């Protein structure tokens, strides 16, 4: 296997790390130094030559080798790598509009959602307690690998190739799996035509998640309606791009209890998205008090936050309880959710990465 990347020399790992920081090849945190040995080990889990182009990010072609280098830096193990490749492939889909996402002043970034057997085989990728938070190696490393690709291949340096006015912590890493076993709904990827036993990533460009608190009560016959109204209200927030500009896909992460209440009321995934679309509105009279020149509605009625149910990516994840989450959308609707299959064949034993 021949690698093309330029080799740099350093007397030890600590010096190499300082070189990486100095050259702005990191996200600000320490990285695993991508030695040739480590990059080759990472490539053991995929049947692609290093020079195969997976997609284009900004001005650069993302080769398997470049992606592997960034994945090593992010802390990935070989079994994580097929998910990273799939995520980069999805980013290269023109429907995602990554160039616009990199250059917007809005603090947006891709969220990687994993479905199918890869959740275990390529992970484990967490979908339960704290799935969006720290403490899960695969989630953290896969999301970070994608971010490092966006920075090092796609040129997204703050204030230069990445013009987010503030950014947001989810731009360091944001990857989770859907809790398919805890979900009463069909898995997300089946909505895009995959079989349930296939593995796929879904990427959505959104801003930071905000918490949706709802204490349900099984005695309450209206509990499902309350959940729908509160989630919809969390989509149509005053400062969200969906309200101020309109359009833009959002992610709704329902915890298993909220999802169960909705399913017990007879609602399917599609029904929930339909209802949320209708409810995620701002009364025109209220909007006139909030609106900028971009979107000032006239007359009575309501201003919708979403174009249609297809603007909602609904998944089930998290520990059972009172908290779900909504990620607001952006880019005035020029970005769309994208997906890609995760191809892996781990019939051979994967090597461990050489120690740091």
């Amino acid at each position, binding site marked *: 296997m021949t690698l093309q990347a330029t080799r740099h020399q350093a007397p030890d790992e600590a010096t190499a790390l300082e070189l990486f920081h100095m050259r702005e090849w990191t996200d600000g945190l320490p990285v695993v130094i991508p030695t040739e040995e480590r990059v080759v080990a990472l490539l053991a889990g995929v049947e692609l030559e290093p020079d195969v182009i997976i997609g284009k990010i900004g001005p650069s072609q993302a080769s398997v080798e470049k992606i592997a280098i960034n994945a090593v830096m992010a802390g990935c193990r070989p079994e994580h790598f097929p998910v990273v490749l799939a995520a980069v492939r999805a980013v290269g889909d023109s429907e995602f509009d990554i160039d616009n996402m990199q250059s917007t002043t809005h603090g947006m970034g891709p969220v990687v959602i994993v479905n199918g057997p890869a959740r275990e085989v390529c992970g484990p990728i967490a979908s339960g*307690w704290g799935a969006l938070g720290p403490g899960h190696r695969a989630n953290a490393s896969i999301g970070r690998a994608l971010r490092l690709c966006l920075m090092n291949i796609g040129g997204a340096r703050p204030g230069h190739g990445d013009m987010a006015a503030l950014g947001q912590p989810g731009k360091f890493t944001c990857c989770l799996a859907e809790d398919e076993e805890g979900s009463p709904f069909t898995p997300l990827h089946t909505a895009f035509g995959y079989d349930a036993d296939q593995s796929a990533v879904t990427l959505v460009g959104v801003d930071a998640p905000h918490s949706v608190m709802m*204490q349900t*009560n*099984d*005695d309450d016959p209206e509990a499902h309606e309350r959940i729908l109204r509160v989630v919809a209200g969390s989509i149509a927030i005053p400062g969200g791009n969906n309200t101020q500009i309109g359009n833009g896909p959002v992610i709704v992460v329902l915890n298993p209890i909220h999802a169960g209440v909705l399913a017990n009321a007879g609602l399917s995934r599609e029904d929930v998205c339909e209802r949320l679309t209708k409810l995620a509105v701002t009364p025109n009279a209220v909007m006139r008090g909030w609106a900028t020149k971009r979107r000032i509605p006239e007359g009575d009625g309501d201003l919708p936050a979403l174009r249609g149910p297809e603007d909602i990516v609904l998944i089930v994840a998290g*520990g*059972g*309880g*009172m908290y779900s989450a909504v990620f607001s959308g952006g880019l005035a609707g020029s970005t769309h959710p994208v997906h890609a299959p995760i191809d892996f064949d781990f019939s051979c034993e994967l090597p461990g990465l050489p120690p740091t």
Partner: protein
Amino acid sequence: MRDGAIFAKAGLPAVAIVTEAFVELAAFTAEAVGMPAVPRYVLPHPCSGTGDENLARVAREAAPGIIDLLEGHTR
């Protein structure tokens, strides 16, 4: 757990009640407040939001065990 520890430190019989999902956290918290042996009773998870009838059933089933612990019996 912290309430249980405060009562226990004050010399009052105390039992901390936690649901299954919080058992590990309860042990950690008990350790953190310097009272690792604070008695605790474990309820199913979730309890909140499961309706008055279910809550009454859980309470009925749990009460004897909680009283046992309050009386100083170990479980």
